[in-house]
Structure formats: C-alpha cells, structure tokens
C-alpha cells in the first residue's frame, strides 16, 4: 500500500515542522509568521547539494539544520528584544525576502522553476526515526530547565527576568533551535517530494501550523502532535471533496478555538499519566503545617 506510506511520510515531514512551531508558540510564546521560510531554506540547501553531488542524507540533514539555525540567528537577533508583535512582521518579511532571493539567484537555485531531480531517499522508516528523535528532543527540552524557563518567559517576561532568566537569550535559543528543526523538516520534504519550488513555502503554510498547534492544545506537546496527525490525515480522508475539505477543516478549527480554547488536550501530556502514578506510589512529601 504505497499510498498510505506516501501519506504517512508526508505527515511525518509536516509533524517535524509542527513540533518546531510548538517549541516556538506553545512553549515560549514566540509568534513567527514566516516559519515556513526556514523549511524553504532546509529544502533548498538539500536540493542544491543533492542534485550536484552524491552525498549521504546525513550530510544534507546536518547542513540544512545549520543553515536554518544561522538564518534564524540572523533574523532573531535584531528583533527578539522588540515587542512581541514585531517578530511576526520581521519573520513575515523574511519569508518574502527569501522567496525573492531564491527567485533571483536562478543560476544557483533554479529561480521560480525550482529544483528537480532530488533523489528520493526518505522512506517512512527514516521519516519516523527522525520524527521520534525530534519528539524525544522536544520532550527532553521541555522537561529540563530550558523548558521551564521557556514557559516562565511565555507566562511573564518580567517575572521571569526577576528569577534570573535571560529572557532574550532564552527566546533566541528557542528561535534558533526551532529554525534548525524546521529546516530539517525542509530537508525531509526535499528528499520526499524530490522537487522544491519557492512558492510552496508561503505564509499559509505557517498559518496552518499555527492553527494545528492551537487545535491540539497550545500547552501540550502531545496535543500538537496528535492534531498534526489529524490534520495530516483528514484532508486525505476527505480527498473526494475538493472544496468541502477546506471548509470542514476551517470549521473544525473555529469550533475548537471557540468551544475548547485550551485545545483538544489542554495542558495534559501523555507522559503525565505515568508521572502521576509514580507520584502516588512514592512517599508523599512531608507537610509542614506551620505554628498553629
């Protein structure tokens, strides 16, 4: 059933990008409108290298991640300290600038014609492996001091700074990491579609990711993942109706946003269940009752 494998592969690619969106928006509250342009960078780095030289996939993967991180650093540095809304503007502008640059340097990038003939090196197993590694990365990140700092920054920047958290650095760190992960998903995309063109990475793609994260639950990694899965499968399941599926998708988002503002999962994580059980099994913390 090559069809199901193709669809699942494409979902894993998108899920990787959605994880980066979760890191940005869900964990740290950074509102990037041009995140798809980092996917574009990853896809183009891969496309340009893989069509010119026969290099192993790992090399392209690493180079894509590096390119994404460097670009994120370049974009993030000037605007990370500015007001929250400005990063949306700057990333939006960056997206358009990248497309214009790619169109312009057509002797290297093929311009609007895109790059064809990228070898198809990603199969479902590779995709799943990378997806699982990314999930592990995000889970460990979230459960470390970095994750707590990110949530603190998202909840209250001033209070976070008063706790000794370097707010700008945490935000930049997340922005750079997310840039790297998104670029990695771009690399996977290039290897799975074998063709890249600049127009595929417009702002609508980013908006789709944002709604996906919100539908799953902005504060839940599991929620974002599950809703990424749902929004990957749903359009395929509704493929028979070209116009209906977009409208249905819109309606689901509007319903969830209106009636389940916390998303499908709220703040729950799949892993939390185990933690709660473990906590119940171990000794309860000693309670200091005060001098009453």
């Amino acid at each position, binding site marked *: 059933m090559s069809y199901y494998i193709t669809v699942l592969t494409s979902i894993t690619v998108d899920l990787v990008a959605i994880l980066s969106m979760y890191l940005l928006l869900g964990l740290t509250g950074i509102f990037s409108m041009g995140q798809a342009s980092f996917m574009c960078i990853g896809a183009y780095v891969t496309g340009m290298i893989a069509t010119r030289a026969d290099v192993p996939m790992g090399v392209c993967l690493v180079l894509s991640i590096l390119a994404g991180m460097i670009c994120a650093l370049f974009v993030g540095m000037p605007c990370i300290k500015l007001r929250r809304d400005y990063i949306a503007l700057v990333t939006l502008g960056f997206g358009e600038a990248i497309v214009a640059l790619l169109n312009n340097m057509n002797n290297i990038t093929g311009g609007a014609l895109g790059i064809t003939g990228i070898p198809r090196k990603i199969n479902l197993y590779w995709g799943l492996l990378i997806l699982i590694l990314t999930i592990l990365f995000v889970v460990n*990140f979230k459960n470390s001091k970095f994750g*707590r700092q990110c*949530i*603190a920054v*998202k*909840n209250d920047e001033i*209070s976070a700074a008063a*706790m000794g*958290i370097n707010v700008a650095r945490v935000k930049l760190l997340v922005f750079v990491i997310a840039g790297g992960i998104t670029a990695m998903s771009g690399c996977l995309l290039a290897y799975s579609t074998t063709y890249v063109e600049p127009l595929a990475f417009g702002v609508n793609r980013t908006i789709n990711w944002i709604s996906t994260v919100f539908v799953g639950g902005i504060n839940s990694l599991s929620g974002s993942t599950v809703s990424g899965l749902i929004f990957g499968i749903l359009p395929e399941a509704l493929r028979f109706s070209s116009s209906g599926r977009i409208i249905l998708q819109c309606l689901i988002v509007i319903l969830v946003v209106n009636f389940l503002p916390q998303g499908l999962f709220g703040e729950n994580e799949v892993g939390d269940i185990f933690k709660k059980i473990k906590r119940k099994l171990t000794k309860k913390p000693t309670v200091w009752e005060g001098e009453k």
Partner: protein
Amino acid sequence: MNIVEVKNLSLNFGGVKAVQNVSLTIEKGGVTSIIGPNGAGKTTFFNIISGVYKPTSGTVIFDGQDITGLEQHEISLLGMSRTFQNIRLFGQLDVLRNVQTALDSRARYNLFDAIIGSPKKRKFDKQNAEKSMECLELVGLAKYAYEKPGSLPYGMQRKVELARALASDPKLLLLDEPAAGLNLTETEEFIELLHRVQEKFDLTILLIEHRLQVVHSLSKKIYVLNFGELLAEGTSEEIQANEEVIKAYMGEDDE
C-alpha cells in the same frame, strides 16, 4: 556595612518625575522599609533597583558593585531577588516548578546535557527540586507542590512568591507590599513568617509598604518617600513622631 547604596537616583517618565534625586543606604541584615502614600514612587524605586527600568540619572551599588543599567536577570544572579505587588507567578507551571525556576537559572548544565538527559542534568534537577520543596515546606505549602498557582487562594500565592524569591538564597530580598490584599490574621501570619525567614536565611530584607503599622514591628530603619522624593528617614519611633510624614499621610484618605 551597607548592602545597597543609592546615590542621586532619578527617573522621568516622559516629563513625569517618578523618582527624584533619592539617595539612601541599606544596612546588611535585618529589615529596612520604604513607606509612603500611594503613588509616591516606591514601586518605581524598586523597579529601578531590580533592573526593570533604567534610571535617568544616579547610581545603584549593590554589595560593592555598581549595578546601574544592568539587565534584570544579571542583577538577580548577583543575589537580589524580589516579589511583585500584583502577584506574578507562572500560571502554567505548578507550584514546585514555579519555585524551581529561580534555581534553574543557576543550574550549571548545558543544552546537550538537557537533551540526552545526562547524569549531571538529573543531579542538578533533583537537587533543585529538593531545595524548592524545602522552601515550600518553610512557607507551609509543600502539600500543594503539584497544584497550579491559579487554583490557590490569594494568601497562599503570596507565600509561593516568597518561596520562589527565597529559593535562590538571595543576599537581598525585595518585597513589594507583601501584605497587600491580605486580611488581618493573614497579615500577622505573614509577618511571623518573615521573622522566621530572616532568622533562617540571614538575609537583608527591603520592604515596601504604605501602611506604617505593618512595618512598625519589623523594621530597624524606615525611609519615607513622597512624590518621588525622600521625605524622611529614621527608626520606627522617629518616623512615627515626624510631623512631615504625618502631614503627607493626612492628605490621603483612602487608608
């Protein structure tokens, strides 16, 4: 020995002089209080010291080091910690993790440790969680460690904030109207708690309050601010006898 020395501190907000030429010193140990009517510039003064605002002029020396113009987190890492007038806890983190954030910025492990979950990371996280739990025990909230702060009553949230500020072992603790919104018994309890904290940690506390009676029993020295200027300084008795202070407070009827 003085832990804080403030010299000629001023801050203008687009024409409004929020703090004007304030100079004061805070001695190490014990509780020093800043009082003054509403809008006297007390919180602004705190915000300058803790790095939220940059002063228009003047210098702040903390523990022998000039901290004027430093970022908030840099000042925090030097050993100054604070609470806020309107409680500012992290709503999405449970109580324990709220306290832990104060220690996290001091935990020495890098991103790589975090991602692979290295022993170093686990050691630091465990240490910090234990220490945070101790702080919570001190304020009597250990059994709420896994609750979200939003679900706790106001008085407890104040205590969580105090525990969070204490967790990093600060040299100086800034408390911004810690008794605001508390009823009489809660206030007494809180003062009690402060005494205990002070004994246990051997730190210096700088307290903002606009009700004189709250700071009365606690402070060894009191500064009075009015309209952004230093009005008076002295011991509790001296301030209570000060005519100017009484006049400044008379103008205010809402208390």
